[in-house]
């Protein structure tokens, strides 16, 4: 195994593009190192991104959005008051990852690129309308987060492409977001269902909404039908029921040791309602 410590994303992309065997980037390492120890993935090239300047920074962008470095840990994210004020749902998704120890290392980027359909921070990012900046040997481009997952353990990133930052849009007025997951225990578990809701209210009415579901399909999905069910409403019972119905209808889960198809489908609706209520309250400043 070759271990690399590039000092720029261009170098990182070039190293990855030139590598021919199994290649992994190293952010927090809470997926990669575990996979290596288990013998599941034995990289030929391991490209550590943490020596690149700025990767642990969180910066406000000119338009009022946020740029989050690829090595920002969950703990740092949670300690950033202004970011938490803007995007509590995104942050709470990341903060659910692992334990205190894991929080010191684990990153949004790693969570996204590990490609798990149950990744806890990804539904929040998708619902928020976040995007990623991708650096490739040919240059940089910006891609919506929902276009990155490609199925269990897979992303749409090509060889030689590295994510160089995560971008959150400006929060604006009357916005609120929330993420909930279902696990049988209280922590250290993989989401059986995850749901993020991001919405904007104006005078009590929902004017914009994005809803994303995790762990109920091969990839984390943005579900427009869920958004439609609540846009234009003040989240009354009928709207909530329609939301739950749309969430359950969007499920295409597997039956496995972590949950049955029926259970996941039913609980997706339950979580959608509960997350929507929290997001709505946050948007109303309650």
């Amino acid at each position: 195994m070759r271990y690399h410590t590039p000092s720029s994303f261009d170098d990182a992309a070039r190293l990855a593009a030139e590598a021919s065997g199994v290649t992994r980037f190293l952010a927090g390492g809470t997926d990669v190192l575990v996979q290596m120890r288990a013998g599941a993935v034995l990289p030929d090239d391991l490209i550590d991104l943490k020596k690149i300047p700025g990767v642990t920074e969180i910066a406000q962008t000119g338009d009022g959005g946020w740029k989050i470095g690829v090595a920002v840990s969950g703990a740092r994210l949670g300690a950033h008051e202004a970011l938490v004020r803007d995007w509590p749902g995104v942050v709470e998704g990341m903060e659910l990852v692992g334990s205190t120890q894991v929080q010191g290392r684990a990153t949004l980027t790693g969570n996204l690129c590990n490609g798990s359909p149950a990744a806890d921070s990804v539904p929040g990012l998708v619902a928020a309308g976040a995007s990623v900046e991708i650096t490739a040997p040919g240059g940089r481009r910006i891609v919506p987060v929902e276009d990155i997952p490609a199925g269990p353990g897979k992303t749409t990133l090509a060889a030689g492409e590295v994510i160089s930052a995560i971008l959150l849009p400006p929060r604006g007025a009357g916005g609120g977001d929330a993420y909930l997951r279902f696990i049988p225990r209280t922590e250290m578990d993989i989401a059986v269902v995850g749901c993020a809701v991001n919405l904007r209210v104006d005078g009590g009415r929902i004017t914009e909404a994005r809803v994303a579901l995790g762990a109920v399909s091969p990839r984390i999905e943005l579900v427009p039908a869920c958004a439609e069910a609540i846009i234009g409403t003040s989240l009354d019972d009928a709207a909530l029921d329609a939301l739950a119905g749309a969430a359950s209808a969007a499920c295409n889960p597997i039956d496995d040791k972590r949950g049955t198809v029926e259970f996941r489908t039913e609980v997706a609706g339950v979580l959608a309602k509960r997350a929507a209520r929290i997001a709505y309250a946050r948007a109303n400043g309650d």
Partner: protein
Amino acid sequence: MAKDEIREFRLVGTRPDRPDGLDKVTGRARYGADISAPGMLWGAVVRSPHAHARIVRIDSSKAEALAGVKAVVTRADFPTGLTGEDWNLQENTMAGEKALYDGHAVAAVAATSALRAQEAARLIEVEYEVLPHVIDVDDAIRPDAPVIREGAADATVPEGMPPNVVRYIDFGRGDIEAGFAEADLVMERSYKTEATHQGYIEPHACLGQLGEDGKGEMWVCTQGQWFIRRMCTAVLGLETSQLRVTPSEIGGGFGGKTTIFMEPLSLALSRKAGGRPVKIVMSRSEVLRATGPTASASMDVKIGMKKDGTLTAARAEFRMQGGAFPGAPVDMALYCAFAPYKLPAVQHIGYDVLANRPKCAAYRAPGSPMGAFAVESLLDEMCRELDLDPLEMRLKNAVNTGDTSSYGPKFGTIGLIETLEATRAHPNLSAPLGPNQGRGIATGYWFNHNGETSVSMALSEDGTVQVSIGTPDIGGSRASIALMTAETLGIPYEDVRVNVVETGALGVNEPTHGSRATFACGKAAVEAARQAIGEMCRRAASEWGIDPEAVEWMNGAAQPAGPNAGEFPPMTIAEIAGKMGSTGGPISGHHESVPDGVGASFGCHVVDVEVDPETGRTTILRYLVVQDAGRAIHPSYVEGQYQGGAVQGIGWALNEAYIYGEDGRLQNSVFLDYRVPVASDLPMIDTEIVEVPNPGHPFGVRGVGETGITPPLPAIANAIHQATGARLRQLPMSPPRVLAAIGEARQG
């Protein structure tokens, strides 16, 4: 004994720091994997990926060609001709003609590094002929089930039983039909529990060395070094005394470390590698796939009850699989099932069934939790039907001292009634319950155990004392034994050092199992101390020139017994020890026996739960353990046992289970998916220690380690029923199951 009961204790019942505490919290304590030796090799084990397969061919040539590989062993390296449990142990250690479960060892390799050994293990080619398999106990007992082993049934199995039944049990007393006829309500229900693992934090680890001369040494994480010695030497055909076994500190065992798994492999590899020591450390996945879980059970229970709650008759039929070998604890489950109750008529039937799963090992009160799940759930259901208070019903039928137990023997002094009364008086019973909340009550029982015990104590030159015991300290037994020894000798707790010693230092000791260490080793330590006191009194008498009978021992010193004995100042233990070299030599005490006077322990648990009606998720709000300890030598460690038992039971009740795929492979061999409770899942477990002293122990100890895992399964099922109206008769009561049951209860 009566004298002991009214005596005020100086140390017994206090809570000093445990002697092994500092090492454990600073990381200095040495566990199984912490020992290395010069020239050491690392072992790795090749395991079957199939639930049931004939081993056609094993080709290790590629592995042996790898640099750094020093030995490969298969079953061909083990002696033949073993019988009975020795054969079972050998077959489980290393598969012979067939791999009998996913994870069954088929070969092992030793190399100069752990990575090299793992690489070599991957290069060992095993050709299998996959056979039909069976996992579930109800499938395994069918007449047409795949046969796991011909001729495994013992003499108890009548002609014509299905092929995987290897043991049959049938006992009882009274006129059972007359009993049911007399009842106002007779109910019969069926229950199932899944296999669970002991879930100890420390994986199995050992370092073994064996020379061509048949002499060997082993350092190992175990509950019982003599068991390791006997089993390893039996499996390898060695003389028992030629293997010396030293136990490490132990990060939990719960019964699962009372037997052998990879230990003989390290010895066999060492012998083949010219006597170089070989270390093997299991991964968590190996622990879950290949070391002993408990049995899974399928149970039918029928009970007759009068309107006032009086029990008239009971019948239990339990079917258990304990893996591909005989030994499911169906007998224990039946003995404990009705033990808390006076029953005029009772019948027990049990089947021990083979299935393609790992060989079950003991797990905390083996069998008792399953039986309790069935019986205590049904009693709760019957109390609801007859509108009876479940605690009062239990008090009405509770066994008392001198009663004949459901399984035969008469009870000695027991404290079930005191336990139930203490439960009734506890504030948790009147805590208010909100919507979607429910309270469940259940009782539980464990016999406790004595076992072969050998303990020595010796005086050091400064008057401090060392005690050598043979039972590894899992739950604070060093502290308890130091307290009892110091109490007996009249010296400070800190002056006693208790050492857990290797097999060469004492006679045979059974493991720390059966809740026996504080009872049996404590009793032996007290006897040893009394012997040393006798010798110290003799030394003082000889110095004073008086009769030894005229000397008594008080407050850590020899004193003349009364004015007629003469006037001498007390001679302290330090003074006697300081000159023992010139007064007759070393002073020690020793005791060995299978101590009689075991005292059984009953418990009663009360749990409050809240169930999310939309997700089926159960939260434990409050949990109370009330249990008879006889006497709590060190109350903190008694409470620790109560809490630990409850927590393991909570895991078993709610989420833990062995999950198999259609292919017979274990799907959840990591802690991510084998879900033991995490700390944030639990409230502080409330405890109440009841003390009805056991007259068979100098301080009244009963043993407290096991009863605590017995009531949680039914207590939680009963609480979930009250919270939701849904009665769950199958474990685990995981959210999908509870949600489905709530749906069914609403419809029906």
